[in-house]
């Protein structure tokens, strides 16, 4: 984050102007305008990388309110495996824009590249070619250490087989991602406890993972994915190991997260689960075959509701 300096009177008018125009339907131009003005500010300030302290949060708030910021943007993303005759593109030019608050279900037959896509989105894998912008920043060329930091701060994973560490308690499992952000233990556990409470698992805090049912385990895993307040939650077949009832509960939780404004990308085989999603992407042979947006029932519900108390202000 750029260093913030004191009040800058010359630009006070800016939020006013914006707020006048904001309700209009021309969202992309507005965002462009903001970006341009932002850039100007940036340049006129000269001093290294400092932004106007007084208006930056206002602009951010407005952006949040009136536009759906892009979380992820993929441009002609390719992933190649093998060389020579064995060459095979798991992803063959994927263009995708994921906006904040979307719940995307990625469908497709085995080997269509959906898991590869998820791995690349989660920075566990690197694309062979193409651009990947996460929160507006190109990330595919960053170092592995930077990738790890991004994973710890901006990405939450939910796996098919839960992947809870069996020898530590539920609450410690949930708090685990926070260890890698350098948070102190007591604060970590408090945070984890708060998230677990939202999943109605607080009385299971000191259970060991082996003592939980599949559905409970997956809910703990979702709590873990959520504890660091990520920009996006990536779920790889989250109900693959669950029976239909547990599946339903877990999908309700994910759907609830979606209503609270979280962005979710879920890979699944089960067509029934697409009913929970706001957008369904079908993939075939490393390409997006179809991309259907399901009409959002209630716009107001897309507003991001702070999840739990004292969430960190996004920085």
């Amino acid at each position, binding site marked *: 984050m750029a260093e913030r300096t004191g009040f800058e009177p010359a630009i006070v008018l800016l939020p006013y102007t914006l707020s006048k125009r904001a309700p209009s339907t021309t969202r992309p131009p507005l965002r462009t305008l903001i970006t341009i003005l932002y850039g100007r500010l940036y340049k006129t300030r000269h001093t290294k990388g400092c932004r106007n302290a007084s208006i930056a949060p206002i602009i951010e708030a407005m952006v949040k309110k009136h536009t759906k910021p892009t979380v992820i943007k993929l441009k002609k993303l390719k992933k190649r495996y093998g060389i020579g005759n064995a060459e095979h593109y798991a992803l063959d030019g994927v263009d995708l824009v994921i906006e904040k608050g979307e719940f995307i279900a990625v469908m497709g037959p085995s080997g269509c590249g959906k898991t590869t896509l998820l791995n690349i989105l989660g920075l*566990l894998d690197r694309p062979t070619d193409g651009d990947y912008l996460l929160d507006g920043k190109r990330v595919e060329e960053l170092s592995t*250490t930077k990738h790890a930091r991004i*994973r710890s701060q901006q990405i939450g994973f939910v*796996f098919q087989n839960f992947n809870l*560490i069996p020898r530590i308690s539920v609450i410690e499992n949930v708090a685990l991602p926070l*260890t890698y952000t350098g948070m102190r*233990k007591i604060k970590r556990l408090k945070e984890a406890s708060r998230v677990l409470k939202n999943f109605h698992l607080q009385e299971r805090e000191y259970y060991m993972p082996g003592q939980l049912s599949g559905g409970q385990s997956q809910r703990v895993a979702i709590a873990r994915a959520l504890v660091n307040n990520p920009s996006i939650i990536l779920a790889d077949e989250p109900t693959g190991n669950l029976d239909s009832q547990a599946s339903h509960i877990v999908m309700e939780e994910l759907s609830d997260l979606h209503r609270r404004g979280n962005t979710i990308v879920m890979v699944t085989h089960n067509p029934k689960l697409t009913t929970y999603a706001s957008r369904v992407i079908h993939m075939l042979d490393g390409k997006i075959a179809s991309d259907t947006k399901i009409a959002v029932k209630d716009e107001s519900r897309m507003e991001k509701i702070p999840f739990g108390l004292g969430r960190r202000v996004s920085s």
Partner: protein
Amino acid sequence: MRLLISDHLSNAYESLKSNRTRSFLTGLGISIGVASVVIVLALSAGVSQIIGKQISALDGNIAVIRPQSTNSGDITQQQSFAPSTITEPDYAAIQATPGVKHSAPIMIVGGTPTKGDTKPAGSIVIATTPELQDIAKLTVKDGQFIDEVTNQQTAVIGEQLSIDLFGTDRSAGSTFTVKGQRFTVIGVLKRFNDPINFNTVDFDQAAIIHLAAGKQLSGGGAPLQQVNIQASSSAQLSSAIRAIDKQLASAHQGDKDYAIISGDEIARPTSKLFTMIQGVSVAIASISLLVGGIGIMNIMLVSVAERTREIGLRKAIGASNAHIIWQFLIESLIMSLSGGLVGYAAGYIIAFGISTFLTFDPVFTWPIAGVAAALSLGVGVVFGIYPAFKASRKDPIESLRQYH
């Protein structure tokens, strides 16, 4: 380093606790290695300390002149069967040097004290002057020490030799032979109980005869094992040493085939042989440490393989490679350091146990504690770094896919 060290420690503690027996046995391997090194070092430090104590008991105005081989590496230089470069004329010169209060040569006479068929093993015959009694602080328990007026055919013997030869510690008046020459015991030394001393002579097993008699026995030319001198005062010691050095240098035509040793130098292990034995013992002891280290590496590799999925998960939720390296490295360090601590304690317990059969005690010194700490730290790092690196290099996608 964003992850707090306490997190790593509690992390490692949890995972070691979940495999209690395995962690304990691995630590035990290190304990045994460190213990054996500590035993050797503590006991050999005990030996050095004994000599050091003797020197400080002698008021610090003692110097020793020993033959020194011009070609280094000759470990047998102080053995009686090696030709000595210090001769009787040298001794005469040393004796005459101003500032030298007492001087006593020690000549090892080849031959064993014999009484009838009894030839006590380990006994030794040395020829010297009466002044040795003052320099080496020898006490006669029964009878008297050799002096200027006593007969050349008289000897003073150590208590143990007396018992071995005559079956009594009161043997004054008895006779024994060396190389056919008859000697009469005129005194028995009080038990010295220090087989290790700066004279490199076990006085309990020695027969002490006149230098002249010794010369006769060894066939005239008398090579000397060493010459002890005592200066009139500590202040005069260095000037005396310089004077002796000058004299000997001219007598030996510039050949530096002798060494004048004083102060703490005398306290050093008396021979290269000792240093070598110590070194070899430490090296052998280190082998068990090496084995312990291999044990650590083995267990860490197993642990990494077992926890592949955990590694994948940790990476997925934001652990960097460095985090993973530290996680596993700290685990192996905890095992090796706690093993080392136990080994250090056990080493001293065993060393004290052994010392009840020896004439010296093990010594606590900081260098030994430092060596033990450094060894266990080193083993932990050396044998823990490879598994840790292996863990950090794991591909998160592959790791997460793995079932166990």
